[in-house]
């Protein structure tokens, strides 16, 4: 597993460098690798799907045009996530002035279930997941976003902070407070616990 990861990272950097030199196939590969995670993340930053999709389009078109001026990067994924978030916020400001409310408790669709989500048949497992989804939606938006970046998109605390444009302590606090809330809201059915212990 570790080995595989290193290869993936290496490929990522190679792709990025080929793309900067004008290799269009490398560019297509980068799009294919990251379009889905970027869409899935973008849908969570704002509920305006069109805004997300337009932003991704703009982002990639701009990337291509400015390819020769781009710097090398260790993590393409991190670079793209951060760029997308900025782009969404900028595009959004053009259309409307909406303040991101850090403490909004209105349910968002940050953790929507899609049909493909529940790939495991066990009913108990589904029960567990839907409980978790309900709890996640009760979290303030920024905590949801930070937890989503850290555990679903697998970024480090430092990267989460930089993508969200907040300092390290705040990112850690979003995540930690979120986890504590989720922990208290998660009920583990006895049967389920027996299965995994």
């Amino acid at each position: 597993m570790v080995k595989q990861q290193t290869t993936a990272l290496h490929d990522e950097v190679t792709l990025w460098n080929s793309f900067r030199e004008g290799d269009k196939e490398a560019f297509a590969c980068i799009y294919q690798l990251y379009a889905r995670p970027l869409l899935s993340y973008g849908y969570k930053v704002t509920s305006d799907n069109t805004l997300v999709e337009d932003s991704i389009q703009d982002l990639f078109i701009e990337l291509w045009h400015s390819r020769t001026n781009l710097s090398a990067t260790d993590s393409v994924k991190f670079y793209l996530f951060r760029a997308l978030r900025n782009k969404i916020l900028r595009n959004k400001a053009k259309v409307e002035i909406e303040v991101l409310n850090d403490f909004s408790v209105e349910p968002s669709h940050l953790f929507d279930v899609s049909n493909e989500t529940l790939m495991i048949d066990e009913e108990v497992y589904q029960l567990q997941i839907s409980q978790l989804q309900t709890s996640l939606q009760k979290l303030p938006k920024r905590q949801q976003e930070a937890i989503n970046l850290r555990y679903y998109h697998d970024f480090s605390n430092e990267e989460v902070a930089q993508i969200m444009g907040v300092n390290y302590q705040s990112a850690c606090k979003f995540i930690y407070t979120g986890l504590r809330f989720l922990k208290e809201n998660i009920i583990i059915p006895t049967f389920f616990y027996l299965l995994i212990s």
Partner: protein
Amino acid sequence: MITDYEHFDIEDFASNDSFKNWVLHPSPKSNFFWENYIQNHPHQAHKIELARNLILGIRSAAHQVPSEATVSRLWSTINEHIENEETLESQNFWHHWSLSKIAASVAILLCLGAVFFQYTDKLQHSLRYFASDNPMIEQQNDTQEVLKVRLADGSTVSLDPDSKISYRTHFEEQKREVYLEGEAFFEVTKNPNKPFIVYANDVVTRVLGTSFRIKARDTDQKIVVAVKTGKVSVFKKKDFQENENIVAQNNKGVILKPNQQVVYLKSEEVLSKTLVEKPELLSKKSVISFDFDNTPIAEVFARLEKAYGVSIVYDEELMKNCFLTAPLGNEPLFDKLKVICKTTGATYEVFDGQIVVTSRGCN
């Protein structure tokens, strides 16, 4: 890892980097660390289990697959913009547009395949660990005596003092895996369908059914795997992990027969094959006689080879006139060789697990 996990609660584990990496990208090293930790801190086991659930649960709850239609629609727009730029740059090449469009589609197909495989592999991996109800057992020998440990498959491990082995309660379906720190003698029950694999430091030993000793103390500069009976394959850990398929592995590994051993020097990272210090007779009830009376040297070497399971390399043509008269008996193999060489004017050395005899011939 010097973090003190003693007072960790569920959210502390879940937000810890080392813990998160173990849950999401388990490696033999992190498995070993955390399973070890759970064994030694049973009161934390429940919290750890919940923290793991929490992380994997969040991943499942957040899992979302954007529609493929959107992904390709966006790409068409992006691609069009890029193509426009290019056609402006090179208008003479009117066919360039469609060609590169085809190239781009092919590239996308190739990438899709790669993404799919990566994804399913990861998912399966986390599912396997999620459903794990097969904890590690750890046996540590703190006594001054050799400790005999019996494994689920009937194999026995004679664990030397100050050594430790760990293994799963139930072995996997495909293989039997054991982790060793220190020194132990293994007697493995035969099961050709289920290789027995010992991980010790930087060396991996794979057998089907045989007996052998492994010395892999952290403080020693070398690791030694010595075979008593049967056949054993030894690998560098790096090579073993890189080659999941057995054929490729066999090319990288060293195969040992009885009385052979492999020495791995940590500093040089090289496996070198030699003979054990005191080769033993393959069978204690051996009826092979070492009482030689004007016996042709070929016959002498053949008997030694048969009795000790070693191979002796020499120039048959050159030594065809050599005969040995010596009443040999229970002395160790290397003492016998000394006598033989002295009387025939030869020398011997051990090279790559074989005995090589050099002689100028006899008259």
